[in-house]
């Protein structure tokens, strides 16, 4: 049985990648298990300058998920490269995926170019879909033209594969994906969190400080599967499917919709062993469904 998948010429042992923002810079999780079993790791979203993020509370529970308003807290790209990557290297011997955010095209290009120099980084994942910051993030991901402009600028400055991480909070995700591919994107990652809100019944006030915040968890999976399916019909480049994945069956479903690999997000926060369990469960499910080579099932829902 073969679980390997290939993303822009880079072969991963399996398609399971912890999603950005749910796995820190990877190091914390090595206390739970040997993280070298992962396909790769999408690192915490990184910006040019350090960011504290939004005021607390940043988290509210929902049925089958949570909303979060972290607001891209990170120590800034220089510290990520000088401190987090070397620390990760001591416990993880594969390439990681850098997740890059910004507030201007120049920001994106700057941060992406810094990661582009790092041997430890396999893919530049450009986050134009963070719902929790103003004047950046999702603003670039809501219009096809703006998304394409970020993509084009980063592509022109970087050698590594550029994957655009898209927002589900749009009218047509396929249109934006297509615009990114035309602008040179090597791949598409979707979905980022959906915009949601929770209100405390006793006080009648929103629970998280930003009021609206990003909703993720198993509840969003059908939306993610549908969007991956739509984008698969619109683009030729590989898709990384994200949204509510918790089990090997979820991985198979997402790949059938069109994903070449998957990212596991919220599940990591509840069960630190989520990715490990999925990777261990995949061969059983492949055997049960008669899947010899996992990469063969990408997009099979379309045929």
């Amino acid at each position, binding site marked *: 049985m073969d679980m390997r998948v290939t993303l822009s010429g880079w072969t991963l042992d399996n398609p399971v990648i912890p999603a950005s923002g749910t796995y820190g810079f990877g190091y914390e999780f090595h206390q739970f298990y040997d993280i070298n079993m992962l396909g790769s790791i999408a690192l915490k979203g990184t910006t040019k300058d350090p960011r504290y993020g939004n005021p607390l509370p*940043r988290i509210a529970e929902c049925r089958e998920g949570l909303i979060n308003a972290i607001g891209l807290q990170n120590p800034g790209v220089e510290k990520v490269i000088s401190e987090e990557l070397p620390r990760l290297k001591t416990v993880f011997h594969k390439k990681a995926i850098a997740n890059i955010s910004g507030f201007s095209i120049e920001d994106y290009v700057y941060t992406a170019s810094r990661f582009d120099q790092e041997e430890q980084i396999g893919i530049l994942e450009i986050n134009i879909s963070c719902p929790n910051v103003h004047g950046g993030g999702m603003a670039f991901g809501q219009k096809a033209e703006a998304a394409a402009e970020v993509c084009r600028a980063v592509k022109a400055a970087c050698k590594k594969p550029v994957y655009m991480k898209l927002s589900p909070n749009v009218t047509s995700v396929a249109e934006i994906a297509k615009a990114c591919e035309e602008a040179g994107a090597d791949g598409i990652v979707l979905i980022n969190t959906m915009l949601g809100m929770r209100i405390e019944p006793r006080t009648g006030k929103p629970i998280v400080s930003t009021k609206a915040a990003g909703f993720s968890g198993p509840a969003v999976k059908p939306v993610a599967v549908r969007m991956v399916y739509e984008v698969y019909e619109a683009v030729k480049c590989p898709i990384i499917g994200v949204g509510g994945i918790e089990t090997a069956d979820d991985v198979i479903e997402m790949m059938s919709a069109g994903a070449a690999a998957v990212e596991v997000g919220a599940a990591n*926060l509840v069960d630190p062993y989520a990715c490990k369990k999925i990777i261990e469960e995949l061969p059983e499910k492949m055997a049960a469904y008669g899947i010899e080579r996992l990469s063969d099932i990408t997009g099979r829902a379309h045929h």
Partner: protein
Amino acid sequence: MYKQGIYTVMSNRRIAADVYRMVLSGDTQYLDRPGQFINIKLSGLYLRRPISVCDWDKETITIIYKVVGEGTARMAAMTGGEELDVLTGLGNGFETDFTKLLPEAGIRKSPEGNFVFPDGRQVTAAVVGGGVGVPPLYALSRKLLSEGVRVIAVLGFNQEDQIFGYRDFAELGVPVCLTTVDGSVGVKGFVTDALKNFEYDFYFTCGPEPMLRAVWNLGKERGVEGLLSFEARMGCGFGACMGCSCETIAGPKRICVEGPVMKSGEVLL
């Protein structure tokens, strides 16, 4: 070091209004300091519930929690025998080595095993708790006593029916001063209304943030340092999501990993 494991509810009983004491049995080797917390998965609820550890031994963990929502209400309904998925060993806990807590003070261990100042005077620590901030101070007090520190406890509650746990401190030999907001028992007012009458060299405090701020301010007035234990809504409890980060003088810190215990000199309140 963190560890996930399955723990069995041994007992669970109400000890004050909306407050319960639960004893869990299972692997406790990853708890190494008072002030750490555990994170409990409850079926049907998405996120875990972080609860501070009151006490532990080789086989059991004792937690004291207040019913504040759906999760803790479900816990309160447990009768024993239930199995829970729990992460243990979370959080930094309280440092109790006074040569590290007050490195400039010249504190040393006396031949009797007490922490003493250069003039031979024994170190006195105030443990100051409010409501469900009291439980982690119990194991802390025992640890401090074993390290040769004099301990006094000031424990604050809203009213009489919410009081719990003070006898446990008294049994350790710790003098306890109770305060209640309505004056029904002990000193009327907040913990600081009592604390200001005591002499202490250092404080350890856990409770609601306004109380932490008051204890911190009193310490600043007196030039006394301390450790403060914070609580926050958490996503994961082990440093992955940044859901509980707070700003400190030393930059952002995650309450779940770099905390919940912070030094008085680094917090911004």
